[in-house]
């Protein structure tokens, strides 16, 4: 099968040369090492990525295959995106595997729920590699500076989670007995009634930019139904079955960007219905309870002496909260970014970070990038996790340094 794919790829490259197709891409080596313990390599990855792109008057396409080679000599061949565009006077139609991005938050997913995420390395890869393309049809209708978008996703794609052996696999909760897993309800069947639909209206102007979004979809992350078998005589738990499933969700929200005296103020918020939360309430047979949920962000961007500065306050809130729920009623995170170039944009310094207010944990990501020549850059950085619990602190043992070398063509 792989041979066939490679042959198809080679044929496509050959044909592209005659069909006036633009071919771009990059070659990259990415090597990372854990700083604790035995200085173990956490990742050694070689990537070859291509973009075949054509734009004509009424039609265009993009095909983006990539090959990733890992340190265990495994090879991954996949398509980041592959779609066809049809252009009309007032609307466009894009059909195929595509990444669709909503919202104005950076490094946080609030209304950005169309494309699932590849979390096999947590959220550390560049974001266009974290987002997974979904096969969908997107209709965009244009009026003035506004765009109305309708997206139909016929087949559900979940988030890609880390392997069981991965250092990025979140720890399992402590169960009194070893649980059995039941995946019979995990997969969402490929049926028309299991389609996902999303709508978005966005507009930009001199006073502000804004967008309103809504979606009816499946949760990209599974929730865990936990069924307990209890000995009626002793009252002890004798068995536990964990059954992951992806519940249906409804989301409505919006975002805005507003220029104020040299600053850009950003905001984004979403209301979710159908969210399931783990609970200790014995009345819940499967340890899950359904609650409405809010997720929102306020942020500010500023440029000072050529340094780009940005900060965001992000909060999640469970409505009609019940104290038996495992997750806190409010979970708050702050993000910050500082970025500056030197030597006429040859050298870039960047510091990005998340700080979780509930657990006081953090992920701090300093990075330095040097462009040796146009399209050829080398970067080095670190991912530093602090504390030992929380979204970031749970990976406290995974502090790492890394280097990347990339040639774009």
């Amino acid at each position, binding site marked *: 099968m792989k041979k066939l794919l490679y042959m198809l790829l080679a044929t496509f490259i050959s044909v592209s040369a005659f069909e006036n197709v633009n071919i*771009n891409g990059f070659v990259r080596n990415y090597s990372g090492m854990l700083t604790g313990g035995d200085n173990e390599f956490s990742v050694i990855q070689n990537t070859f990525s291509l973009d075949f792109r054509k*734009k004509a008057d009424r039609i265009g396409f993009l095909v983006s295959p990539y090959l990733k080679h890992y340190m265990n000599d495994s090879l991954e061949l996949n398509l980041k995106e592959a779609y066809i565009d049809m252009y009309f006077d007032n609307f*466009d139609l894009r059909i195929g595997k595509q990444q669709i991005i909503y919202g104005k938050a950076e490094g946080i997913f609030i209304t950005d729920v169309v494309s699932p995420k590849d979390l096999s390395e947590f959220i550390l890869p560049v974001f266009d590699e974290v987002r997974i393309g979904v096969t969908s049809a997107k209709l965009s209708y*244009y009026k003035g500076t506004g765009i109305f978008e309708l997206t139909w996703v016929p087949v559900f794609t979940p988030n890609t989670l880390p392997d069981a052996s991965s250092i990025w696999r979140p720890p399992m909760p402590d169960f009194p007995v070893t649980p059995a897993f039941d995946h019979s309800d995990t997969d969402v069947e490929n049926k028309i009634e299991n389609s996902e639909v999303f709508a978005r209206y966005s507009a930009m102007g001199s006073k502000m*930019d804004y967008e309103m979004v809504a979606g009816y979809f499946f949760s990209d992350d599974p929730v865990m139904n936990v069924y307990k078998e209890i000995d009626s005589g002793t009252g002890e738990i004798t068995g536990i079955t964990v059954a992951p499933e992806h519940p249906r969700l409804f989301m409505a929200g919006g975002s805005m960007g507003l220029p104020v005296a040299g600053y850009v103020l950003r905001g984004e918020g979403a209301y979710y219905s159908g969210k399931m939360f783990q609970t200790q309430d014995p009345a819940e047979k499967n340890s899950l309870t359904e609650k409405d949920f809010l997720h929102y962000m306020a942020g500010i*961007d500023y440029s000072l002496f050529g340094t780009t500065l940005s900060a965001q306050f992000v909060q999640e809130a469970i409505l009609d909260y019940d104290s038996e729920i495992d997750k806190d009623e409010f979970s708050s995170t702050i993000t910050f970014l500082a970025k500056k170039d030197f030597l*006429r944009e040859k050298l870039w310094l960047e510091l990005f970070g998340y700080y979780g207010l509930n657990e006081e944990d953090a992920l701090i990501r300093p990075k330095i990038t040097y462009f040796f020549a146009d399209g050829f850059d080398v970067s080095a950085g670190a991912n530093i996790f602090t504390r030992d619990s929380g979204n970031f602190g749970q990976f406290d043992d995974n502090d790492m340094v890394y280097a990347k070398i990339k040639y774009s063509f």
Partner: protein
Amino acid sequence: MKIINIILISALAFIGSFTALKAEEMTGKTIMEKVYYNPSGDDTQGELTMSLINSRGDTRVRKLMQYTKDDGKTEKKIMFFLSPADVRETSFMNWSYTDGRDDDQWIYLPALKRVKRISSDSKGDYFMGSDFTYDDLGDRHPDDDEHKLLRTEKIGDYECFVVESVPKDEDYMYSKTITWVMKENYLGLKREFYDDRDRLLKVLNIKKFEKISGFWTILETEMHNVQKDHRTQMVFDEVKINTGVSESKFTERSMTMGR
């Protein structure tokens, strides 16, 4: 915020209306006003190649396609980056206003796949690592400076007015500029920029200009930072003026589709 303009509709780069004023009646201010108010067309498009050359002769090249449209109140510009490869498909849009409001700016990064509003860069920041600041590339209003006609002199075959312009704002990045304006067409041919210690910082030379669709158009320039011995050459190709660039060119659709 003013950004690069394909035809450099800048304070330095205009023809004058050929009013029959004699040189001896001209003042520094009237000369610079004639430079500023020259007609430049309602819309322009063209491809810009920008070469950054350091003191060792190492060269980096940036190419982009730019469209502008000006309705007299708002000047809209959009740039599509063509090279180097790592910035291809990036687009940048700027709306600037004659009423003095801050410019609006957006950027589309293909990796993020969304249009993002960005805070207006400081006018003193350098554009894409070049020797041009954003302000160098914009329309500096003649009322922002005090102008003085120093002399007339010849550069090559061109008889020029030499005008010194001192900014009214003491915190401006230059202490003064000196501009050589061609008498025959009120096109700036050369400009010297002096730093805050009154030392020569940069020299801009116009190397090629032509009349396109009835408008004098700069096609090749070089800015030389004499203190760092770094040069930026700009070459404009495929320049078209007043072709009726659509308003829809300056929208989110255009930025994301790259067309």
